[in-house]
């Protein structure tokens, strides 16, 4: 799998091509992780802040 990962990660790409990946990846992740519909979904509830002194997991 190392070889596959290398290629997919961009090491087989040209330097110009490699330079594109971070921007594109950031745009994709932002578009998904910050999508407003997910905030309404009961399957991804808001995490509740707890007092660390309570020693809870």
């Amino acid at each position: 799998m190392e070889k596959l990962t290398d290629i997919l990660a961009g090491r087989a790409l040209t330097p110009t091509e490699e330079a594109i990946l971070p921007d594109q990846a950031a745009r994709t992740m932002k578009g998904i992780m910050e999508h407003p519909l997910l905030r309404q979904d009961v399957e991804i509830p808001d995490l509740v802040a707890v007092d660390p002194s309570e020693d809870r997991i």
Partner: protein
Amino acid sequence: MSASIDQIAAARVQAADAEEQLAPYLAAAAAEPTIFSKVEAEDARAQARALDALAAKGQSAGPLHGVPLAHKDMYDRVGQVTGFGAKAGCGKLATATCTVLARLDAAGQVDIGRLRMSEFALGATGHNHHWGIPRNTIKPGAISGGSSSGAGAAVGAGLVRAALGSDTGGSIRLPAACNGVVGFKPTQGRAPVTGVMPLSFSQDTIGPLAATVAEARLVLSIIAGPDQIDPACRDVAPMRQRAKPLPAGLRVGFASGELLAPASARMTAAIEAVRSLLQAGGHATCDLDLDLLATLGEAANAIAMSEAAAVHADRLAAAPETYGDQLRTRLAQAVAIPGFAYVRARQIQRLARKDMFEKVFGTADLFIIPTLFDVPPTEADMNLGGAPGAAAMIGQLAHYTRPISVLGFPALSLPVAQTPEGPLSIQIVGPDWSEDLIADLGEWLETALASTFSSAG
């Protein structure tokens, strides 16, 4: 070659001369190497001879009897090489004929050859790293659109009346819009993909590009329905092959918010003209907030790229040099999409469908949005290969098509205006399995627009 499928089929049954009539189609196809990747002349003649034998006995194979068609080079036919738009030598010798070609054969088609496409069906512009780009048949210098680039060009040039394409993010609708023809992307699961090259398991659909809505509907109705092999193909009521009058009380929605912001002034004017036509015809229209669609592009892209990388991972590892620059770069995006992001993209997909059913299809039966943001852009502007900006450019081009793909809804791309700079096309979109109603509205608009043009001329 301007006769309709119905006219061609009727004449071939009556005259039993399918083989004789095939010659000009084969010659015209052979003269278009940017559109046809292979003309399958011998197989086509054999099909035509068998149909002539049937017609000589007074029988018809079906509604496509003797009608020359051609299809995107990703459909398996036994004994032929499926090329996928890939580098020379990277095709596959098919050992069986895919379900949808077998159904078109049984209905009487004569399959004259294989049509150019974007490499492995990933590309919105029609450019292919290995094979160039088909000519735009209506506006020289404009892109043909992709990934069913040859299908759009073949129908646009009048080489065939209809051609199968495939659509994962716009690949039927974009080339249809670029070439001024009709493109019909069905509901995900309407037609079986057995023996068809996969790209994205959850978003792939197959359907026709055609000269008219009636012909697109006919071809789609023939290929639709489960084959007991493709588990994703659903057993739903079959489509009608012919139009019905639009139902009284039909409600057609139009986008009223930011979704239309990227559309050109002439595109929004064309859509308003469609709205006026509907109103003049006594049909109800309404404004809809469709801005949700504009937020779905990245989820659609993440799902499609992750699934495409799963398809190509082994080959990409073994022979990365066989892929073109843009395709390799786009597949490489998949590594930056972790598993949890793919799952969240699928959650967005599900929630967005729920939202659309509740807020949109509760108010309107169908809605209308652009296919492209304007007329087709030029080949030169869109020829970015793997360079910076390519992914964003593709995202912009598919701004109105990708969201419909991720939602799985059916959509018909219909040309509604012709400008000196090229055609303008709209999408008619409906909920799952609404293809009949979409086609009915498409045919109604086609007729209404034709009479508008003729009275204006």
